[in-house]
């Protein structure tokens, strides 16, 4: 069936709540309002206020109570309205959820899913960030960043059934994207599997979350000029599956990592290091990255455009990697 990304998330929530009555939702405005991105619309009517619970503006309590409810035997799926507002909950997630299983020698599981949203436009510095990489740094947390409706659906179901805490980062800019979703309530996308989203022999583009859309658009434009780019969607940042990335780079020898966030210390830095460690001999040029300007996101439309990564940036780097052969790509 054809669903939007938003509908895919909603459907996954609904089916998992039907499958397992321990699954419940809580967060700000998730009830009658249906979530500030309208993802939980209709769930209150279907499952009632015990399982779809509005909370006060208390991110630390949302995360902390989520941990406690998970320890108490439930399967909480909590919503943090935006990843920009997750920082008051960071201690609960980083020192709590991530460590409990290991630190207490495997006695406890924390099967908590924290759904949140990255991205945003014309909302400025404290409202448009992609902070998932902060959490991907932490052993013990799983960090999932779907970039298609099918992945949003299958990954969320897998996250809810997973015994470990999962930060599930949706993209505000992808909610209206449509795509095919299997009509199968047990369709799962296992956490920790990257996916080749487009095949190509000349160049590899690696991305996650909305970066995948930028990479696919760049690949489309490159194809029009006879360059075949392969696009690898990481889908899960931790655990990170390098398999498809390594296979692709061994084939193309050229790679650009497309990020929708700051580059320093980011996903691109990690991928570049892994490539240097594991596929150095396959590289025919430097590992390049595209990312946003290293500034807090400005509000003014013109500055925001400058601060965001652009498809042109991908094309320019592709041209550089294709050496003399690629100079023509940038008019």
């Amino acid at each position: 069936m054809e669903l939007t990304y938003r509908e895919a998330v909603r459907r996954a929530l609904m089916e998992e709540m039907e499958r397992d009555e321990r699954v419940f939702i809580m967060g700000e405005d998730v009830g009658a309002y249906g979530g500030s991105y309208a993802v939980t619309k209709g769930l209150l009517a279907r499952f009632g206020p015990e399982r779809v619970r509005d909370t006060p503006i208390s991110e630390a309590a949302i995360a902390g109570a989520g941990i406690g409810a998970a320890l108490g035997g439930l399967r909480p799926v909590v919503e943090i309205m935006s990843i920009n507002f997750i920082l008051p909950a960071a201690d609960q997630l980083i020192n709590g959820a991530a460590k409990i299983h290991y630190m207490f020698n495997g006695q406890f599981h924390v099967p908590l899913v924290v759904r949140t949203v990255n991205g945003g436009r014309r909302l400025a510095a404290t409202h448009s960030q992609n902070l998932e990489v902060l959490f991907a740094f932490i052993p013990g947390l799983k960090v999932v960043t779907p970039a298609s409706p099918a992945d949003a659906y299958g990954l969320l179901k897998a996250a809810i059934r997973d015994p470990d805490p999962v930060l599930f980062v949706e993209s505000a800019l992808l909610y209206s994207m449509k795509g095919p979703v299997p009509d199968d309530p047990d369709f799962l996308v296992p956490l920790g599997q990257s996916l080749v989203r487009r095949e190509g022999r000349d160049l590899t583009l690696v991305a996650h979350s909305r970066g995948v859309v930028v990479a696919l658009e760049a690949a489309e434009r490159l194809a029009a000029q006879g360059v075949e780019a392969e696009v690898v969607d990481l889908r899960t940042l931790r655990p990170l599956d390098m398999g498809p990335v390594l296979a692709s780079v061994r084939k193309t020898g050229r790679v650009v990592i497309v990020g929708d966030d700051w580059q320093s210390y980011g996903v691109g830095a990690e991928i570049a290091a892994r490539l240097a460690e594991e596929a150095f001999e396959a590289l025919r040029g430097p590992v390049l990255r595209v990312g946003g300007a290293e500034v807090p996101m400005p509000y003014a439309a013109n500055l925001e455009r400058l601060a965001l990564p652009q498809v042109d940036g991908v094309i320019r780097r592709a041209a550089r990697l294709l050496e003399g052969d690629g100079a023509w790509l940038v008019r």
Partner: protein
Amino acid sequence: MATGDRVDLLERYQHGRHRELGLTDEDVRRMYEVMLLARRLDERMWILNRTGQAPFAISGQGHEAAQVGAAWALDRERDWIYPYYRDVALVLVWGLTPRDLMLQLLGKAADPSSGGRQMPNHFSSRRLRIAPQSSVVGTQIPQAAGTALASKLEGTGAVTLVTFGEGATAQGDFHEGVNFAAIHRLPVIFFCENNGYAISVPAEKELSVPDVADRALGYGIPGVTVDGNDPFEVYRVVREAVERARAGEGPSLIEAKTYRLLAHSSDDDDSTYRPREEVEAWRQRDPLPRLAAYLKEHGLADDADLQALEEQVRQQVDDATEHAQAAPYPRAEHLLDHVTGP
């Protein structure tokens, strides 16, 4: 009721409550003027949003009396404010101009709050002692305690007023900030504009006590609930808090009960969670017509004066709009300025 009380009430009525509070006729006229300016400016911002000229608008409509009453109790020449996004009227009293607010709405270079960098209604001015704002709810509260600490240590005598919604009082930052200020007896006033909702979530799901002011008990400071649509009452209770703060007696928590007349922001449809009859009932208590009636009743203005004021305010709003529309965007070469350093 004793006879004495009745005489008292009668006097009050005849002479006007404002005089009893030490407010001059001119004060009251100015209060109304700022409230009206804030209202009309806010309305224009929504029009600019709805016509695609501003990507975002967030409203202070309905909160004007609370803000103006509080502002009037402070000293604009030395006190600090930590406003939140609904405080159009408060920052107008504090010296930001309609042009300033419109420039920020449209993200223009000359926006004095942020040079086009921060969202609308995230006010700031170092010159005017208007502290800068994050979008993350409640973060201003402990910061305000810190500014009050600085004033105390430096002996400036300044008081800090920090504002927020009732929803923000569920944040750890609120509880930590108030506790900190109470322990150190800091000259800060925690001013809650309680409009009954945090986006769609009603107060009974945000608070486990009837009033935000009840929270003061836990910190051993005064907590006062006041009709936020009555600027004089707000003025009275904030003035008391200011006196306490200046006397070194520490912080107070004031809760002004009010209502936002519009949706949470331009991205919100409040008809899904607020019954229309409730909104209508609060429209009947709109602080603007209420104060206009008071002005007329006490001979401070007549219909012609009010009409003239409307016209003058409309001109200011037109001027601000046109000025901001014509103003340039920030220049690209400034993108990287001020991340750190000078």
